[in-house]
């Protein structure tokens, strides 16, 4: 250790003596001076006892012990000062342990001796090793008197003698040196680790290629380090605006953290991330990790991505829908922006495809860092697989567990991961594995799938006790999304359940398939991440060879509606011409376009974007959810719809009924709405807000009702996001904007922020600690019961994560506002509920089902329903109606008539339909997220075709549901209000969307009118909902469609005689959706002539709008009414819409609305010649007809 040279010490001493003299002059006599002769280092001196004094006098507020922390927590020392005192403690110990005190002096002349060549001191001294010196400021040494807070002079008992001060100075020096070197070592180690990654050898190659090439592909296997190192290379090479996309949001966040650490930017903003709901992006951010969805959003506002000079697209081999979409866009973009660089990163899967797609771009292949994995093919024997009905046989899995137990000593660590296709399979194998585990106490069995709560999912990362292995039974979620270290054994069932979309039935289908070879390899690879492993494949090598090479890309499995809408809104006229990496089926593109036209997002004429379509393209949600939001604004039911739409766009917060015990269900019961799932979701959310604003622990509340709280937080975030978007486009006005926070609230806010910060760092620490599993953790049923036990409830303490979520929630949301809103929605009357239903229908229609007439409405029995295209669908087990099917009992009425085909007709005003969000086929076709809606109102407001007979008593909606009225007059009344409502709604929609693109002053002029129209519509809508006219409803089978229409020969019209064309005239297209008199009147033996008479008979009629008395037949009457309504809606002087306001664009609105409706004889969309290659014929088709025609091939 160091020893100060004598002469130097003397010099120091004399300096200090002078100082002390000055002190004595300045101050009153001090305590007795320390003896002058002191050893340079005194091992017995207790530095720590003077810690506070020394810290405050010399350390605080210096560059070594950065100051900002001191400001924040003045009374708890910052960590680096803590660190320093630990160092001092060690120093002290070291000095005390030295057997003899350090030699105090060496001969003075030895000190002068220097080596001959380098001129360095021959006699070693520690201080020569320091490349700096530290000086203590004079003013500090002189010790200006200091005062405490009350003005009392502080007497420095702890003052150091000059010798001790010198020693203290050298301690600081050693600490500084030590600290610098420690930190350098960390960086050095980091660099070494980086250099050991396989990708490191390719750094120069990649950067060289990038100089000349616009696009390069890096193909590297798991563990090569590409995801973390490439962004770093780019940053170091001077790229400034780097965007890296990831398919998963978790990956974005963890990569951003990792890369910021690795680039030594942990504490500034050079590396950030942006995912839905969260971003850490600032002006100085140079690398931004984002999800693909975010990049696509950015493309909408900045089509050339001018914010970036290099794009890194990771995991392209996974072929997600968005990945493929982005690649297509990039392909176009690179010709436009020659300066844009692109790096594609993939596993070594299907490299040629990507390389070829980008004109044979260079490929940099990087080997992975995987340990050797031994593969065993153990095909399931025939007798085992043949016996299986639908249940999985767990024997092969148990055999392997046994085998492992026998072959490997339990002291050899290494867990097992089993890949199964689905939930039921996991359940089956888990039960068997658990009873095996219970016997031999050597395994902990854990399930892993997306339906588990997040906490349950996290368990797979915990450590098992010594001598016990984890057995994780997982879906393909563990193939890429979840990476678990320490896995040594893999059992691969070779099966996967994959979602596909069937456009014909508009149905999702979850089917079991053989996996691809690529995914078999990926599964195998999971065993070799931390050491050599073994993979058991429950199929033969022969099977393996027959597996398809790559998995089907998502673009060929999912509905393309939203994707195509995005494409068109980006300015691509024909999505079929999009440069797909691998094009999807043209039929699936066509059917998606057709659906978008049905939803009025695309024009039926030329597939261009309608105003509502362009609005929908801007919303980051499904088309149907987007429509709900827009209509919610129009009808002023924003809050409940925001919640329902958010809840419907994420996974259900309810644990499935199967996972819950009866008590949980009972507790959940009060929230279950008789109207259906969307309302139940609304109830849960409102209830939760209530409990939260009461200050109760919502976690317990959720647990007891089988609710996953995280999803409720997600709903809150989504709700907020939707609201912000609506506000951005002026669709909803923020009435609370002006509300300012009071000082008290501000202080509260600040306090919460601090609390959040503290909790986060606490949580960071917690999560760094490894958690340990117990043998009892093995089964989920156990843990579920634990949490429900009453004893545990009292003991339950809020966990850090819960606290964080809670505070985050309270910071962002104004709880009292939310509470007020939920109180509102809990007080809704039936009128409001019906309105909400119709708003939801605006997005969900035509996802409608009608009950089968033989349903018994008993619990535990399947009730059957029919959609237009799929018969005999059943309610999903998660649906509230599964529990209370009697809510769906059909109305009975006094009067039942039997129609000609011997079918009972129930006349009532209470017929209902089921509207659903998803149709999903697993073992049965299920409808999910279901609600009941009034049948006639739903159909009349949303059907895209409404066809009637000659007196409107028989109405066919969308060619599959027929409504029959008893009374022709009521029927006409209903038709009138239907026309009015639809006209007013469309006009209002148009006005609202038009307002969006206007400058503010115009908005001021037109808004009042919008409000008035809104008011009118709400009133009329309420009337329509209360409508008590009775009707019967039935399903028309497609076979019947041939006979239900009046005979017409449209196709051969050209060469037909007068008679035919006169009949044709009678069937009148009133407007886009309404066709009059094309149905046979009744199945009765009515003659041609009576029908003819009915439709041509003219009567005197006074139009309620223009008060004109005119002689009309029914067709003319409806046409006139339709027109008159439109003009009066747009004209203020008319009786239905009195307003003194002047309107701008009135005429243009009118004309645009009436072009579709003005003439009864001409069909609405313009037709053009279409030549079909398949049937070698040329047709006169509208574009929607072209699509329909193509679908027939």
């Amino acid at each position: 250790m160091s020893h100060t040279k004598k002469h130097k010490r003397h010099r120091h001493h004399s300096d200090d003596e002078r100082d002390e003299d000055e002190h004595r002059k300045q101050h009153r006599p001090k305590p007795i001076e320390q003896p002058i002769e002191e050893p340079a280092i005194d091992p017995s001196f207790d530095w720590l006892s003077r810690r506070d004094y020394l810290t405050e006098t010399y350390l605080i507020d210096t560059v070594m012990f950065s100051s900002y922390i001191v400001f924040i927590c003045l009374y708890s020392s910052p960590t680096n000062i803590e660190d320093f005192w630990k160092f001092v403690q060690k120093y002290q110990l070291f000095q005390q342990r030295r057997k003899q005190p350090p030699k105090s002096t060496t001969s003075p002349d030895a000190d002068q001796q220097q080596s001959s060549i380098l001129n360095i001191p021959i006699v070693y001294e520690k201080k020569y090793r320091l490349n700096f010196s530290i000086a203590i400021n004079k003013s500090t040494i002189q010790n200006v008197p200091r005062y405490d807070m009350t003005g009392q002079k502080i007497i420095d008992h702890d003052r150091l003698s000059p010798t001790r001060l010198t020693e203290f100075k050298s301690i600081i020096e050693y600490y500084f040196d030590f600290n610098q070197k420690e930190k350098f070592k960390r960086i050095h180690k980091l660099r070494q680790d980086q250099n050991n990654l396989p990708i490191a050898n390719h750094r120069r190659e990649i950067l060289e290629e990038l100089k000349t090439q616009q696009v390069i592909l890096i193909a590297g296997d798991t563990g090569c380090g590409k995801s973390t190192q490439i962004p770093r290379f780019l940053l170091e090479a001077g790229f400034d605006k780097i965007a890296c996309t990831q398919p998963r949001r978790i990956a974005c966040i963890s990569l951003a953290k990792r890369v910021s650490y690795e680039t030594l930017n942990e504490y500034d903003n050079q590396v950030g991330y942006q995912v839905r709901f969260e971003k850490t992006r600032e002006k100085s951010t140079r690398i931004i990790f984002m999800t693909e969805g975010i990049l696509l959003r950015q493309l909408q506002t900045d089509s050339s991505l001018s914010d970036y000079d290099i794009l890194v697209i990771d995991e392209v081999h996974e072929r997600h829908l968005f990945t493929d979409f982005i690649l297509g866009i990039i392909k176009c973009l690179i010709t436009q922006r020659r300066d844009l660089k692109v790096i594609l990163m993939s596993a070594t899967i299907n490299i040629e495809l990507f390389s070829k797609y980008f004109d044979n771009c260079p490929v940099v292949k990087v080997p992975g860092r995987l340990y050797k994995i031994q593969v065993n093919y153990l095909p399931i024997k025939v007798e085992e697989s043949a016996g299986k009905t639908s249940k999985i046989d767990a024997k092969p899995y148990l055999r392997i567990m046994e085998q492992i137990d026998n072959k490997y000593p339990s002291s050899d660590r290494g867990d097992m991961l089993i890949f199964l296709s689905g939930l039921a399979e996991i359940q089956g194998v888990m039960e068997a594995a658990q009873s095996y585990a219970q016997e031999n106490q050597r395994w902990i069995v854990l399930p892993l799938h997306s339906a588990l709560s997040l906490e349950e999912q996290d368990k797979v990362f915990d450590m098992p006790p010594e001598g016990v292995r984890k057995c994780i039974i997982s879906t393909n979620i563990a193939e890429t999304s979840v990476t678990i270290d320490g896995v040594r054994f893999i059992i691969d069932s070779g099966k996967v359940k994959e979602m596909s979309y069937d456009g014909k039935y508009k149905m999702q289908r979850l089917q079991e398939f053989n996996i691809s070879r690529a995914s078999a390899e990926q599964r195998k690879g999971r065993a070799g991440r931390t050491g050599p492993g073994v993979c058991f494949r429950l199929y033969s090598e022969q099977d393996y060879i027959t597996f398809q090479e790559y998995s089907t890309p998502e673009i060929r499995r999912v509905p393309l509606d939203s994707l195509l809408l995005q494409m068109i809104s980006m300015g691509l006229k024909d999505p079929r011409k999009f440069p797909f990496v691998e094009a999807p089926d043209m039929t699936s593109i066509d059917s998606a376009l057709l659906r978008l036209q049905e939803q009025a997002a695309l024009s039926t004429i030329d597939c261009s974007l309608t105003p509502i379509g362009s609005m929908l393209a801007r919303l980051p949600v499904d088309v149907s959810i987007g429509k709900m939001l827009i209509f919610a604004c129009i009808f002023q039911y924003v809050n409940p719809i925001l919640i329902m739409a958010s809840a419907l766009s994420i996974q259900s917060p309810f644990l499935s009924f199967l996972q819950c015990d009866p008590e949980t269900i009972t507790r959940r019961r009060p929230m279950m709405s008789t109207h259906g799932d969307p309302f139940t979701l609304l109830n849960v959310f409102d209830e939760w807000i209530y409990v939260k604003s009461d200050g109760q622990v919502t976690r317990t509340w959720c647990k007891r009702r089988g609710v996953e709280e995280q999803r409720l937080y997600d709903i809150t975030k989504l709700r907020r996001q939707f609201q912000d978007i609506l506000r951005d486009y002026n669709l909803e006005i923020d009435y609370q904007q002006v509300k300012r926070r009071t000082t008290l609230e501000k202080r509260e806010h600040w306090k919460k922020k601090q609390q959040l910060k503290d909790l986060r760092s606490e949580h960071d620490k917690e999560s760094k600690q490894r958690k340990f599993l117990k043998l009892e953790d093995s089964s989920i049923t156990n843990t579920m019961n634990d949490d429900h036990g009453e004893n545990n409830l009292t003991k339950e303490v809020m966990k850090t994560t819960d606290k964080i979520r809670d505070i985050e929630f309270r910071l962002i949301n104004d709880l009292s506002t939310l509470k007020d809103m939920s109180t509102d929605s809990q007080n809704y009357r039936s009128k409001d509920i019906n309105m909400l239903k119709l708003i939801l229908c605006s997005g969900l229609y035509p996802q409608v089902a009608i009950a089968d007439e033989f349903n018994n409405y008993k619990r535990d029995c399947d009730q059957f329903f029919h959609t237009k295209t799929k018969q005999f669908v059943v309610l999903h087990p998660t649906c509230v109606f599964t529990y209370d099917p009697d809510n769906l009992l059909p109305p009975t009425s006094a009067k039942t008539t039997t129609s000609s085909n011997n079918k009972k007709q129930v006349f009532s005003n209470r017929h209902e339909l089921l509207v659903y969000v998803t149709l999903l086929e697993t073992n049965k076709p299920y409808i999910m997220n279901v609600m009941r809606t009034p049948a006639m109102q739903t159909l009349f407001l949303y059907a895209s075709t409404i066809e009637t007979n000659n007196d409107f008593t028989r109405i066919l909606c969308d060619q599959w549901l027929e409504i029959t009225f008893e009374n022709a007059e009521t029927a006409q009344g209903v038709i009138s209000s239907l026309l009015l409502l639809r006209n007013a709604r469309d006009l209002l929609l148009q006005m609202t969307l038009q307002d969006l693109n206007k400058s503010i002053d115009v908005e001021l002029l037109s808004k009042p009118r919008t409000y008035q129209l809104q008011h009118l519509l709400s009133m009329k809508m309420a009337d329509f909902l209360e409508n008590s006219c009775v009707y019967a409803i039935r399903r028309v089978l497609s076979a019947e469609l041939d006979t239900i229409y009046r005979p017409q020969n449209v196709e051969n019209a050209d060469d037909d005689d007068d008679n035919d064309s006169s009949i044709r005239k009678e069937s009148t297209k009133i407007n886009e959706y309404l066709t009059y008199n094309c149905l046979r009147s009744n199945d009765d033996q009515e003659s041609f002539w009576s029908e003819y008479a009915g439709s041509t008979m003219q009567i005197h009629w006074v139009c309620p709008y223009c008060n004109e008395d005119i002689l009309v037949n029914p067709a003319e009457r409806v046409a006139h009414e339709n027109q008159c309504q439109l003009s009066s809606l747009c004209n203020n002087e008319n009786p239905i819409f009195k307003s003194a306001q002047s309107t701008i664009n009135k005429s243009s609105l009118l004309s645009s609305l009436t072009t579709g409706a003005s003439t009864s004889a001409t069909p609405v969309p313009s037709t053009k010649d279409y030549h079909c290659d398949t049937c070698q014929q040329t047709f006169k088709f509208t574009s929607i007809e072209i699509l329909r025609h193509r679908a027939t091939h």
Partner: protein
Amino acid sequence: MTEPDVVEPKVFQCSLCPFYAAYDRYDTKYIDESLPSPVATTQYNKNKKEPSLTIALIEKVYLLRDPFVAIKDKDKIDQTKLSSLVIGSTCSVCSRPVCIHLDCSLFYTRRFCLKCVSKYRDEFPREILDEIGDKRLEKFINEDYDQYEES
């Protein structure tokens, strides 16, 4: 194709090992004095006193802003309180850049790269040679030791 207009970052590359890093300053001052002095803005603050410790460097070194210390309130931060990290220096004999890792260099009144230490090993006190150990020096006995140079 035009190259994006980027400023090449200043990179320190050790001549004896693969270590490299983009440095912030090559300076003899531990505290960056090129930055506007915060004293001007804070002198009205009476609580502010002169720093009680000052650090003076004895050699010219490559400095990095300490990446392990968080900067909060970027605008307000006093530049004199920003701690830096010494990552490397220049050998006083051969003038090559070397990192401060004990495998590469040491400071003994001046900076010496281990190659030069190996060359002049008789000049150094026993304590230093013991600390380095023979192992570290052995590889430098062969004169053809590859220089680590990256473009």
